[in-house]
């Protein structure tokens, strides 16, 4: 629901403005649900042995005019960016900056160009767009502003090269006036964990409604078993790897050796 329109209607009916603001605030959840509805074709991405990346379709509807922005954020963690410098003719890692809360995956799709949607301040507040990601260096680090910018750019570039951050903005396609859809692509190197898919309804340069949908990326089957044992029972995993290799080597040596 449009707040301004509501205010006007309220004034016509003699309801005080503050009460309407209160109503809007209290009813935000229900109002938002009505203003914007979206869902994914699948809430689980299963990484099996043959996984080569996948696509998930997001579809939804809005209740009136407006633009839609979709932001997909992967599990966050610490990432270290290192820079090679030439030392005596050999290129080696010298400077490094650790960033906290870096999404392992990030992509944006919009129904019209990002710059025309809202002001940079609004985009930054909601974290819409790669350039508006709050990539802050971890505490206890002293980094110059100039080199910080280049390290940040390098981080984004590297992630984009791996297909983990979107280059440019994807497209949210409207089917008629209300229905919209977009496709989200995940490369094979996608990290496991809980992802969040944020859908924003933007009207007149402001976010009027938002909805967050979870998306889980999980290994299944053989690869899930292997990585789980490797992480939880590393000694057992190592032992199995050693015994397996012994057996294969012994089999190969005694079978093929006699051919």
């Amino acid at each position, binding site marked *: 629901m449009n707040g301004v329109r509501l205010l006007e209607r309220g004034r016509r009916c003699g309801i005080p403005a503050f009460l309407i603001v209160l109503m809007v605030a209290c009813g935000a959840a229900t109002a938002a649900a009505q203003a914007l509805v979206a869902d994914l074709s699948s809430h689980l991405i299963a990484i099996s042995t*043959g*996984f*080569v*990346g*996948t*696509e998930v379709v997001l579809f939804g509807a809005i209740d009136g005019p407006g633009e839609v922005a979709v932001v997909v954020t992967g599990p966050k963690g610490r*990432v*270290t*960016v*290192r820079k*090679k410098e030439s030392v005596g*003719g*050999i*290129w*080696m890692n010298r400077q490094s900056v*650790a960033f906290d809360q870096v999404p*392992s995956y990030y992509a944006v799709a919009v129904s019209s160009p990002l710059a025309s949607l809202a002001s940079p301040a609004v985009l930054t507040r909601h974290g819409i767009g790669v350039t508006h990601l709050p990539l802050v260096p*971890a505490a206890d680090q002293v980094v110059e502003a100039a080199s910080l910018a280049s390290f940040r750019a*390098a*981080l984004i*570039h*590297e*992630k*984009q090269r791996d*297909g983990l951050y*979107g*280059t440019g903005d*994807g*497209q*949210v*396609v409207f089917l008629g006036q209300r229905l919209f859809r*977009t*496709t*989200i*692509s995940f*490369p*094979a190197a996608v990290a496991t964990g809980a992802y969040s898919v944020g859908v924003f309804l933007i009207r007149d340069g402001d976010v009027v409604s938002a909805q967050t949908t979870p998306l889980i990326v999980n*290994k299944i089957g053989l*690869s*899930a078993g292997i*990585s789980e044992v*490797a*992480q939880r029972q*590393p*000694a057992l995993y*190592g*032992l199995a*790897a*050693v015994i397996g*290799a*012994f057996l*294969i*080597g*012994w089999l*190969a*040596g*005694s079978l*093929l*050796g006699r*051919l």
Partner: protein
Amino acid sequence: MAPTYPKAGSGATGFDRALDVDRSWPDSLRGISSGAVVPGVSMEVYLPIAEMSVNALTIVGMGGVVGFLSGMFGVGGGFLITPLLMFVGVPAAVAVGTQANQLIAASVSGVLGHWRRNNVDVKMGLVLLAGGGLGSVLGIALFEQLQRLGQIDLTISLLYVLLLGAVGSSMLVESVAAMVRRRMPMVRGRLHRHTWMHGWPLKTRFPRSKLYISALLPFAIGTVGGVLVAVMGIGGGFLLVPAMIYLLGMPTALVAGTSLFQIVFTTAVVTLMQATVNHTVDVMLALLLLVGGVVGAQLGSRVGTRLRGEWARAMLAMLAMGVATALAVQLVETPVDPYSVTIGAPR
């Protein structure tokens, strides 16, 4: 929905564009399935520890080629696999850890043949092994430290350049000299020279090798070998074999079997530790390498028996120097992208 892999330039919509910037590897190396693969039968295999997918045929083929060479020349071939894996995008740490696992099988199948021919000096092997145990513990600690400092890739590359360059060039000189000598009458020299090292304490008899030397000498050689397995992911046969011939003065017939005997156990210890300390052993990757490696090694050893020793050594030397040169160029060449990103942080 059928998993698809968008290719650069395909007019994809939506987020597909995210993938348009592809790595600069040639498609054949990345193993991106194009028209050649039967639809529905994907040869892509997801590596659970490396957390990436590779084309199974590429890795099996790689293992096969390296196995062929190692069968032909009688070396582990680890020095080729690690750089090749890094080249297809496997993280250096996973390449090294997995290689240790792969080497167990390769050296077990190799040592069996030598065992049947009674070409293993078990006592010498055990002393080497004791050194190897110490060396691999040191090596794993070093590996962990270097990984933390972000210098593991540089160290691996530098060690490869130095060792492959040194061993390769001296082997080339030696084999060319042998080719020249073949045309001249043989002069029988002494079995081995005595140097200052032979004055070390703890003198021990090694009846099988007909040696009476300080046990510290093979122990030290084993230690160096253990460090190499841990840090470089190679069996160390490359370095052990010449050291055993020239430093210990062991009979050549016993050297290959004895070094393989100790490599079996050193690689087992390293695999166990890489799995527990660094979590860098990918059994799926190791299995793929093994499938190709086992077949390749058998074919290679058949070809190898028809190849004259010094020719085989000269070819191996040139191969080693080629790898060393390629890695050296990478080290001094101005990188396209000076930045690199690692998950996690300097602790």
